[in-house]
């Protein structure tokens, strides 16, 4: 019983997160200006990080934690680099 409830809510959560990534992807592809696209990319990254956590709970293995952490790191660095580029026109001054 408890396993079933958890399984269903995991499925619903993963569907939610996939939809959220879809919304962000739409904003990234469509976004009228460059900053909208960067915002979409950042949202995709943070949702992917959360999706990794739900996969970890589903399989009961803590190794997904590392993947989530790396996605969070990469998302931060890449978004910051692109935003910096928009701000100055170059990444490293």
């Amino acid at each position, binding site marked *: 019983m408890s*396993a079933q409830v958890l399984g269903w809510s995991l499925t619903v*959560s993963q569907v939610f997160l996939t939809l959220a990534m879809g919304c962000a992807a739409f904003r990234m592809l469509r976004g009228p200006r460059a900053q909208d696209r960067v915002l979409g990319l950042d949202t995709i990254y943070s949702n992917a990080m959360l999706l990794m956590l739900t996969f970890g709970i589903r399989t009961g293995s803590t190794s997904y934690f590392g993947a989530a952490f790396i996605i969070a790191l990469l998302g931060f660095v890449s978004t910051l680099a692109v935003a910096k580029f928009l701000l100055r026109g170059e990444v490293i001054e």
Partner: protein
Amino acid sequence: MTLAEEFPTWAALLVSMLLLLGTSLSLTGSLGLLRLRNFYQRVHAPTLGATLGAGCLLFASMIFFSVLQTRPIVHEVLIAVFVTVTTPITLMVLVRAAVHRDRSEGNLDELDRSKTSNQSGR
């Protein structure tokens, strides 16, 4: 599901509730990316998923693994700290870039006009 049968009901319910709450919050945030009208409004939306959404999910994961392995598993705190520190930095730099671009292109009046301009479409 590779879940042990003896996983207690209260923990399963708690984890499920936190999961649903957190993911619906981050879905709401991403939906805001579609629904809100201009960039400066849209920047606010992903913060939902990054603060309370991520918090709920990390808490759920913490409870789940602590119960599953019957010892405290707290390394999710690392992600929580990391996200709390980095999200403001990203958003701040992004907003400054947007303001800079709007200024250099001369449509800075958006900064002053934005209080009234949002009633009409995007």
